[in-house]
């Protein structure tokens, strides 16, 4: 049938490969792709030196491939504790648990976890398919970003109405707010000694968010940074 031929050669029904939700917006760029955590993701855009420079000025990196797990419900905190996951004591704060997993407490009874490089709590929790009263699994399909560099607040000031500066957003605080007109979660984190901002939004907005972030980053002298800059 004209126009709807299927690429049989490249398709293996037994091999499930996901694609980063931001990929649509990156396809126009010179992108090096890699499969990380079963997701095709951009690991590089330019030479390492250029990307290192961008990181210092204003880098935007897609880290949607990191595993995430969401859970909510009156017993969610206890359930996580039963799985030996350290949780933040207060709402709207985060901690890094022993499993190298970022644990964000989005409300009194809602949590979002994200495995960092080498982290494993999300995979461990995902393997538990049991259902427990008052514990509700929240399916996640986030687009996730690292924003780095000296001009990052300049970028965020254009996209978000609340004060995300160090003076206002404490180091262990999580904010759920609007970024570029859509719901997003933001926190400050230090990765390999570098202070960065983390940003999550619904994956279906991923391409839009990438484009907005990148447009402004380029105007401010930065640009796209591949995942490879953080993998090591």
């Amino acid at each position, binding site marked *: *049938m*004209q*126009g*709807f*031929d*299927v*690429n*049989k050669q490249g*398709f293996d*029904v*037994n091999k*499930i*490969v*996901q*694609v980063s*939700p931001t*990929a*649509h917006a990156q*396809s126009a760029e010179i992108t090096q792709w890699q499969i990380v955590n079963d*997701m095709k993701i951009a690991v590089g855009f330019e030479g390492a030196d250029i990307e290192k420079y961008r990181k210092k000025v204003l880098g935007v990196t897609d880290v949607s491939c990191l595993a995430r797990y969401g859970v*909510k*419900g009156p017993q969610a905190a206890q359930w996580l504790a039963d799985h030996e996951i350290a949780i933040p004591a207060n709402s709207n704060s985060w901690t890094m648990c022993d499993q190298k997993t970022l644990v964000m407490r989005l409300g009194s009874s809602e949590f979002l976890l994200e495995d960092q490089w080498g982290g494993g709590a999300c995979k461990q929790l995902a393997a538990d398919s049991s*259902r427990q*009263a*008052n514990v*509700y699994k*929240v*399916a*996640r*399909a986030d687009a996730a970003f690292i924003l780095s560099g000296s001009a990052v607040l*300049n970028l965020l*000031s*254009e996209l*978000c*109405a*609340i*004060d995300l*500066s160090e*003076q*206002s957003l404490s180091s262990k605080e999580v904010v759920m707010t609007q970024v*570029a*007109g*859509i719901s997003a979660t933001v926190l400050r984190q230090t990765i390999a000694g570098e202070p960065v901002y983390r940003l999550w939004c*619904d*994956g*279906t*907005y*991923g*391409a*839009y968010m990438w484009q*907005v972030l990148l*447009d*402004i980053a380029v*105007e401010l002298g930065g640009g796209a940074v591949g995942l490879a800059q953080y993998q090591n």
Partner: protein
Amino acid sequence: MTLRIAKQTGEWLNRDKKIHFEFEGQALTAFKGDTITSALWAAGLTVLGRSFKYHRARGILSLANHDVNILVTDGIDTNMRADVVEVTEGMKLSAVNTSGSVKKDKNSYIDSISPLLPVGFYYKAFHTPRRLFPFWENIIRKAAGLGIVNFNYPRILKRKQHTHCDVLVIGAGPSGLTAAYLAAQAGLTVTIVDENKQAGGSLGYDRAGDAASVAQLQDLLNKVTSQDNITLLTASYAAGYYPDHLIPIVSAQGISKVRARAVIVASGAFEQPPVFRYNDLPAVMLGSAAQRLIYRYGVKPFNHGLVLTANDYGYRVALDLLQAGTKVVAVVDMRKAGDAAYTAKLIEHGVKIYTGHCVYEALASSDKSSVKGAVICAYDDKNNLALTSNKFTLACDGIAMSAGWTGASALLYQAGTGMQFNYQIEQFIPSRLPDGMFAAGKVNGVFNLEQRLQDGVRAANAAIGYLGLKAVQTEAITHTGSSPSHPYPMVPHEKGKNFVDFDEDIQIKDFVNAAKEGFDNIELMKRFTTVGMGPSQGKHSNMNAIRILAKIRNLPVEKIGTTTSRPFFHPTPIGHLAGRGFHAHRLTSLHDWHHTHGAVFTDIGAWKRAAYYPAPGQAKQDAIQAEAMAVRHSAGIIDSSSFGKIELHGPDAAEFLERFFTGVYKTQKVGACRYLMLLDESGVVVDDGIASRLAEDLFYLSIGTSNAAAVYREMQRYQQMWQLNLGLVNVTGAFGAIGIAGPAARIILATLTDLDLSDEAFPISCVREAKVAGVAARVIRLSFVSDKTYELHVPMSQVPHVWHALMTVGEKHGLRPFGSDTQRLLRLEMGHAMPGVDTDGLTNPFEIAADWAIKMNKAYFIGQRSLAILAKRPLRKQLVPFVLAQNFAGEMPMDCNLVIEGQDIIGRVTSISYSQFIGRCIGFAYVTPDKTALGSTFSIRTDNGSLVTATVVATPFLNNQKDA
């Protein structure tokens, strides 16, 4: 002739840098830092623009960003305010609103017929006879407006940013700078904003001939710049006040939305012109304008100047003129007496002072380009009379005017400040400030410099205390001495041309006429006379207008009140307001596939959905019909990932659904699906969808694309009220959905799953959880577009895998994709009405024959009470399925075409389409209840006016393949 004088201490010029430019074809030079106006004035040019209505010659008025008669264009930009826009190398400028040239404007004849054009004449003159209106409209449109819009103006991005501070100080004059410094010393982050290019306010130019204030200003600026926690923004204006201290700051680069914990308004005051005949001539300017010209730009306002004053400020202006080398012909004071010290000082300089006198009229030079003298006469202050019996003329080439002030209070008004008229200073000042708002300086009614500094300290301490820090709270400062403003600086003249509003050429007599016509309320008078409606928004006219109306009505000023102040305080370019365009949109994980395969996209809610997939050269309708035929004859596949998807977890999930929707869910079996209909409290249909019960305590809801976010928000709101034991999870973005429909759907799907798809094991309206192509899926059997439809709900990132698998195995069965436009045709063929398409904001379920979906015997559901009332009333309209005649070949009716009976509209078409499969045009329409019986006919009026007969049939339309 040049009026450039020697370098002034603190001037804003760089005299080492010469600028070359042209104005109206004349080559001129300026210094770096000159505004267009200062450069022109220095070159001896006085006619810099023309007034809007009468095209009268105009020069400098304020030199403070309000000289709206001097708007220029450089050929690219227009309506540039020459009094503040810096002249740059190579500019080729000309005045706007002129015909020919600014000096010899062909439209200046309008001034001579001005008696025929009083305010409001066009309200009365042109509406009859109606046939002539297009003629007048053409003339008025040509005459109206300032400047010519350049449609090729480049798109220059103006960024909009959000910033934050503890204290925002509006105005970098002495009060503002003092307040900012003190607040910063208390450890607060402070932002100061000032519309001028440099900070300092009147401290920089109001010198009374003495440069001592320059050092005082420098000291203040040094203190401010020494504080790291102060951000000083110049050439930026605070454009409005919004709740919670949100204030947009506009600069050439864009808009910064500042959220402050406290705001100190130290915005100063606008000098107000006295009103006398020909007070608008070039070289008649405000005293503060003359001072700015001297000290900011090193330009002498006149050679032989006269000062008309009604306060002590005019004496200070006279001393500044003397310092600049102007011979001050006289100071004419409308009051009985002036300040003794200033008087002595001026007399010492040989300046003649006429107290109790006024300028009866200014005398124009022969070419009306300047002033040649002023007629002076005694003035009866009490009775507002010009005593002309002994009038005399003084020769001069310019007049500086100082009659009083009005506070720059716009933001205070917008913030809800209570304002009171203070007769001691003849000014509206704050009497009750909102929380976190503070006022200091002239806007607060404090004029003496030392007192303004103290007022800045007081306001800062008040703000510091408000923010929870320790601070000494001091008493409010009260103005001492004579009033800075005259109560009625209006000199009557029988021949008029005594202008109140320079933007719109409004004279005193216009207000009198407006009042006679009954427009004697300030808001009505504003609209009738258009006072304050020009580009300067009444900054130099509103106060005088209030005073005139008070006099006409013989009421105190405070009884007249003020007009409403609204953001933006100053005209702001559209490009600034637009900023960067954010168009948030959602893409499904199959977006690239759709794109690659030629999909035409449509916006549904925030989503980009594939509407149909035309082959090269194929028309839209042909593509849709081909896709629909595939579904009817073989199989079609659609990306339905944009559907709203919500999970309800918990023991009270069914209870919640029963309260929220119209149906019954407690008895719903696990593995079964039920229809959802959502109403609002008034019984109007809002949305519909499907509830799939996955477990006793878990429902999975799929609802329409466009309303999904709103429905989820409403569910959260009701849950907050009901506090049931459940959890709501919005998984719209986490799950994607694929619909596969048609006779071959089952066989295609069966190759990728172990699930028993037989009708017995998996009938319509059931849900199963199974793996499809190795992916965990929620499989729902529906009949929305076909009796054989399966919806596969899988994690969004795995949708492409399942889609590819289906396409691969479906190829031999003729599987092809179809889009959302085709889906609409398919559901129409099935006879399903869609909320939002076949309903509107008033439709109740009875009108769409959805009684079956309403379980009135439940204890409660949203809209139930309204439905109980509606059920007792006869229906006024009802949705019916219809077909057009077989082989219909006339003008095709469209959605929203009206159903007509005789001369009456009895309904409208909501959906209509030709169906190739059925071979007829089918649709839904609202009609009156008497037209709903099967076989009834009604007429649809098409866009070309023809009437088309439609016949009511039963659904599904698929049964109408034969004759209806």
